[in-house]
């Protein structure tokens, strides 16, 4: 029996081909991501110390207090790295570049090594290491000079990678590494408002806990400075965050592809078993028992699953080998992929479970075989012993198991499974409603064109899997279209065509006394905004530390905020609520009046009259909310969560933030002039940053699109499998038409109408839902105008129509090759 089943299976190559494709498409993607994820996890585990930088790490946005420095400096110099990071403009005689400066003490790095282009060269004091981007943008070479702040440095070497910065795609500004001892010469430290201070400490296990406890106690006792102290085990690295978030997201997409491929697999098996009914009936008539027949099929399908997993494994190795560039933005430099047996075994378990679930129904039907019925050309209508709802429970349970494993949490697994089920049900109901509507139109004879009527009736052909196919295709079209539509609207307005009225140059850290000179240097009008840096101490008497756990993830209440002062609304704002009509501030007796932005008021759960206390460098200011502002236009324009009257903050330590609009081609020259005259000012070019952001977003979008497109492929497999499952019916219909004298072109028309109806209904349902979702997100979340890419839509639609027509044409050609006479006889 086994050899007969294998022979029958291999007789028509389309069955093994589709079966294998269903498993290979989904599992190759799964294995690739799994290998990436496990390799990254292993990389993080193996290199945790060098990725974090030390056994203990202190970080702050303010100068580390002397009390802590006194403790730290008792350690040996070789156990300690002081690290300062900030943005600054590096410049030459005629060029300048926004850079991310990192100044480190002599012992850097405590763990791991710097990778330099000329490995044999030493890095002396007074010289700097720069990324390749710096050399290219400023047209420099190793050995040339570069000015940062007030100091001139020699470029000692090209920096390839830093052990504690595995990913370079995030963050703005090209890296320049300098010695801590050279930092004072730049004279930038006093002028920069945003400096990240870090101290990395190497500590043996026995001292680590003691030191941690001591530093922790000290940090807690200092209220004026917020200090983060973490051990290497507690620290998250950018790469582990990425592994946990982005790859898991991609894997969720692939889990959806696995489920869709399972549907395709089910159709293939169903078509094959249906075709084998007669052979099975003959075997049964000759005395073979049904259990043996089913066992033979099981052996066949499980063997195919194993074989397909091996193939998927090989394909995934090829993907990983050839797609390094695609993953470049999320992989560290010199990262080695480690392929392990566990990746394969996991995929094999999925393939076997999928096969067991998806072949069950078809195999169960074999138990119902009554040889005499089948040999008389009748179909078996005996009910299946296995309840379909139980089968669905198994499918959902299987999906939950896989998701819980991937997310490493039963709770999250259950949430995402529920999400999957709800989305699936929503689409299934939408498509069911659409199909009911078509059925209703057919019943009411509202469609007159008979070829169209026939084509639409064929959608309801038994075994057509139309609903499933349309659900899968509309769902995947929706995901891809949503990504494209969001991307399009945001890019059109913020990136590709930078808003005309928005400022495109931003000046950070302007000192009050520099204003006049800057105005003289820049031909266009500048808008200056005073910025006072402060922390929130309490809200309605509740300390910020206590509140932190009760608030959402919108923002971090413990960070430093930029307060501003003035008595007017910005052009991009409107007054949402106020104690006194149209007044930003109303007189308060016990506190200063405060105007707050509505989004932050929602985050803090505060309203008019509520009290906030700010800590401005140790001075506490009590405020009461007298108005709530709302942004009416988003985009690259400044805004402040908190606005106070000038009289309150006028004497507070402050810097200025300035914006202006300049012609694109003049920005570089002005940036260089500004850097040469005011090295402490950081100039940001809005359009260039938007472009940098676009490149990064494009890389991630590309990855998401690739993996989502796999679900389209799975949808295609469902379509192919349903064509296979209904091929007997279709051949029969085609014969009937030909027998009655229908012309080939009319037969082709009917088939084309059916394919077009299936494809276009599914695609356009997906587009419609995607448009609605994107419209809501773009309008209400981004506060931008929703722009529908009509040209792209019509081109895709035309391409789809062409594809469906070609498919219909070739499918009909294959039907024509079957002999009409043979069919009519049998």
């Amino acid at each position, binding site marked *: 029996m086994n050899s007969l089943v294998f022979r029958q299976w291999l007789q028509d190559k389309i069955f093994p081909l589709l079966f294998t494709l269903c498993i290979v498409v989904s599992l190759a993607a799964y294995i690739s991501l799994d290998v990436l994820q496990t390799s990254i996890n292993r990389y993080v585990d193996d290199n945790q110390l060098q990725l974090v930088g030390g056994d203990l790490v202190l970080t702050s946005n303010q100068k580390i207090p002397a009390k802590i420095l006194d403790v730290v400096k008792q350690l040996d110099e070789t156990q300690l790295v002081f690290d300062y990071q900030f943005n600054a403009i590096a410049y030459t005689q005629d060029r300048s570049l926004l850079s991310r400066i990192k100044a480190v003490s002599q012992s850097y790095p405590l763990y791991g090594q710097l990778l330099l282009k000329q490995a044999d060269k030493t890095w002396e004091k007074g010289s700097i290491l720069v990324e390749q981007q710096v050399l290219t943008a400023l047209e420099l070479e190793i050995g040339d000079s570069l000015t940062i702040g007030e100091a001139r440095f020699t470029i000692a070497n090209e920096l390839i990678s830093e052990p504690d910065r595995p990913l370079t795609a995030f963050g703005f500004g090209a890296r320049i590494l300098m010695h801590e001892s050279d930092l004072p010469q730049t004279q930038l430290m006093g002028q920069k408002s945003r400096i990240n201070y870090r101290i990395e400490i190497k500590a043996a296990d026995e001292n680590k806990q003691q030191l941690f406890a001591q530093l922790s106690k000290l940090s807690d006792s200092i209220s004026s400075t917020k200090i983060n102290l973490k051990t290497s085990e507690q620290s998250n690295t950018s790469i582990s965050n990425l592994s946990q978030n982005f790859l898991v997201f991609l894997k969720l997409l692939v889990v959806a592809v696995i489920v869709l491929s399972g549907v395709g697999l089910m159709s293939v098996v169903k078509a094959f078993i249906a075709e084998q009914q007669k052979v099975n009936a003959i075997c049964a008539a000759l005395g073979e028992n049904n259990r043996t027949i089913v066992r033979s099929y099981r052996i066949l399908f499980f063997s195919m699953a194993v074989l397909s997993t091996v193939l998927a494994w090989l394909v995934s190795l090829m993907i990983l080998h050839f797609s390094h560039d695609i993953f470049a933005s999320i992989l560290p430099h010199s990262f080695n992929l480690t392929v392990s047996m566990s990746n394969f075994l996991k995929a094999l378990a999925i393939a076997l479970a999928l096969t067991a679930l998806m072949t069950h129904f078809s195999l169960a039907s074999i138990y119902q075989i009554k040889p005499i019925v089948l040999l008389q050309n009748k179909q078996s209508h005996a009910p299946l012993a296995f309840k379909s709802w139980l089968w669905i429970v198994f499918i959902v349970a299987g999906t939950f198991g896989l998701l819980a494993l991937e997310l490493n949490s039963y709770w999250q697994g259950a949430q995402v499974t529920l999400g999957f089920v709800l989305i699936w049900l929503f689409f299934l109901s939408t498509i069911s409603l659409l199909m009911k509507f078509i059925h209703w139109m057919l019943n009411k004879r509202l469609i007159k064109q008979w070829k169209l009527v026939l084509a639409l009736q064929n959608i309801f052909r038994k075994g057509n899997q139309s609903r499933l196919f349309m659900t899968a295709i509309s769902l995947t079209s929706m995901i891809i279209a949503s990504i494209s539509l969001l991307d399009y609207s945001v890019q059109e307005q913020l990136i590709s065509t930078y808003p005309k009225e928005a400022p495109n140059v931003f000046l950070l850290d302007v000192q009050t006394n520099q204003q006049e000179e800057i105005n003289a240097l820049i031909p266009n009008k500048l808008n200056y905004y005073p910025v006072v840096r402060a922390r929130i101490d309490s809200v309605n008497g509740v300390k910020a530390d206590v509140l932190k756990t009760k608030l959402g993830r919108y923002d971090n209440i413990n960070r430093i905020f930029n307060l501003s002062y003035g008595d007017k609304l910005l052009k991009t704002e409107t007054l949402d609520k106020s104690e006194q009509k149209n007044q930003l501030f109303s007189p308060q007796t016990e506190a200063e009046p405060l105007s707050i932005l509505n989004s932050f008021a929602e985050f803090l759960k505060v309203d008019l009259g509520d009290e906030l206390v700010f800590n401005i460098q140790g001075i506490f200011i009590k405020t009461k909310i007298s108005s709530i502002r709302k942004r009416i236009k988003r985009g690259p324009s400044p805004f402040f969560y908190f606005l106070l009257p000038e009289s309150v903050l006028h004497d507070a330590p402050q810097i200025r933030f300035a914006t202006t609009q300049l012609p694109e081609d003049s920005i570089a020259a002005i940036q260089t002039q500004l850097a040469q005259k005011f090295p402490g000012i950081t100039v940001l070019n809005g359009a260039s940053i938007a472009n940098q952001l676009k490149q990064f977003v494009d890389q991630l979008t590309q990855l998401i699109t690739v993996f989502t497109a796999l679900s389209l492929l799975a949808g295609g497999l469902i379509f192919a499998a349903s064509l296979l499952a209904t091929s007997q019916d279709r051949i029969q219909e085609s014969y009937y038409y*030909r*027998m009655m004298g*229908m012309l*080939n072109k009319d037969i082709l028309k009917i088939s084309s109408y059916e394919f077009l109806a299936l494809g276009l209904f599914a695609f356009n349902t997906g587009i419609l839902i995607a448009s609605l979702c994107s419209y809501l997100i773009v309008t209400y979340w981004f506060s931008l105008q929703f722009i529908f890419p009509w040209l792209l839509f019509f081109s895709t639609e035309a391409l789809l129509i062409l594809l469906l027509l070609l498919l219909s044409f070739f499918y009909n050609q294959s039907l024509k090759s079957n002999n009409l006479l043979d069919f009519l*006889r049998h």
Partner: protein
Amino acid sequence: MKALLSAHDICKSFSLEHQKIEVLKSINLSVFEAEFVAIMGKSGSGKSTLISILAGLDSPDSGTVILHDDDLTQLTEEQLALKRQQEISFVFQTFHLIPTLTVEENIGFPLKISRSFQQNKVDELLNKVQLNHRANSFPHQLSGGEKQRTAIARALITQPSVLFADEPTGNLDEKNASSILELLIDLQKQFNTSLIVVTHDPGIAKRADRIIRIVDGRLA
């Protein structure tokens, strides 16, 4: 009297594992207008192959089949399709109804194909085959006899010159077979159509105007 359909020197052979099997050997026959001809023979004698060649469903190795002065063996697929729209119809043992269409739609379908649909013709045929009450039923809701009556109505709606029937009662019980035969002959007379039936059933053959017997690929 001029024949409606005539076959001249028809030969047909098949190759089976490099061996040539001659199914039809130099067949000559004529069928006249409104004539009822029964073709009989043992299994494998070549009767189904003959009817297929006469109906233009298959082409002979040599010889001609003339229907209304047109040689079917020389016509293209499209021209043969037009012949089937206007002059040739079929009734089969296994009915071959379109499962997604109702009885009424199945019957009227050939008229839609030939772009000459008239509802009154459909109603007339429904009436003649006594299926008015089943007009909106689908094939799977019908009994064997009802299915064959639908198939007969569908075959005759275009008022073909010749109707080919391959074992039309083969799938029916005795009572249904007898009533279908009566209906077929009755309608053949009413529509003045030539009827060529392939059958094993001597009862049917007995009702025919002429019986053609085939033995080993030759007319006996």
